[in-house]
C-alpha cells in the first residue's frame, strides 16, 4: 500500500469513526427528547400511523418499483406503534 492509499484509508477510517460518533449523539439526543410513556401511545398505535402493522407483506408498490428502478433500500425498520410488551 503506497502512502496516498494509506492516507485515503486513514481518512475513510476517521470519517467512519466520526459518523459513528455523530450517529450515537443523535440517538442519545433523540432518546432524551422522547418521554412518551407506554400509556400515552394510543395515537401511535392507531392503524393510520402504521398501516402495515406487524407481520405484513411489503406493499406491491415497493415490489413493483424494484422492477422499474435501479435503486434499492428503505424497506427495513420497525418500531413505534403500540409499543406493547410481549
Amino acid at each position, binding site marked *: 500500500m503506497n502512502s496516498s492509499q494509506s492516507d485515503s484509508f486513514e481518512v475513510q477510517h476517521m470519517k467512519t*469513526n466520526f459518523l459513528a460518533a455523530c450517529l450515537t449523539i443523535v440517538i442519545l439526543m433523540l432518546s432524551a427528547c422522547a418521554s412518551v410513556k407506554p400509556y400515552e*401511545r394510543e395515537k401511535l398505535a392507531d392503524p393510520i400511523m402504521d398501516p402495515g402493522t406487524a407481520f405484513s407483506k411489503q406493499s406491491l408498490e415497493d415490489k413493483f418499483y424494484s422492477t422499474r428502478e435501479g435503486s434499492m433500500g428503505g424497506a427495513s425498520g420497525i418500531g413505534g406503534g403500540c*409499543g*406493547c410488551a410481549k
Partner: protein
Amino acid sequence: MREFITSLSRSFHLTLFTVCLFGGLLLTFAKDKAQKVPGISLVSLRDGSMTQLDQFQGKVVLLDFWASWCLPCKKTLPAVEAIQTKHPQLVLLTISIDDDKNNAQRFMELRKLKAVVLHDGKKLAASTFGIQGMPSAVLIDSRGMIRRRFDGYTESMTDEMEEEVVKLLAEGQPHP
C-alpha cells in the same frame, strides 16, 4: 488535527461504553421498594360509580391496566379473569387507559368482560403506578402495599401471577 479527532472519537466511545455499562448494572440491580397503594378514585364503566383504589384494605388486589388499542391486552384480560374465578377472595380491578371511554366500553362489551372495569382517561393511575409497559398488572397485598408488577404478557407470566396471588392470599390468612 487528525490525531486529535481520532483520540477524541476514541475517548467518546470509551466514555459512552462506561456510562451504559454502569447505568445498565444500576438499573438491573435496583430493587423496587414496596409502596403504599395511592388513594386514587376512578369511575366505573359499568354504573358510573367511583372506586377508591385504596379502599380494599385487608384484601389482595390485582390491578390490570389495559387499552382497546393494545393487542396483547386481549389475552391478559381473560387470563386475569380466570385467576379471579379460581380465587374468588382476590379483588380484580381492570383499568382502561383509553382516551375515549366509548372505545373502552365497546371493547368491554365485545369481550364480555365480567370484572370491574374502571376508566383512567387522564392516566392518573397509570402515571402514579409508574406503568412500564402495556399490558401491565400490579399486585397489592392485604396491607395495601404494592408487591409485584407484571409488564407484557406470556403464558408463563400468567402462571407466575397466579402463584404470587396464592402466596399473598395465604399471607393474608389469620394464623391459627
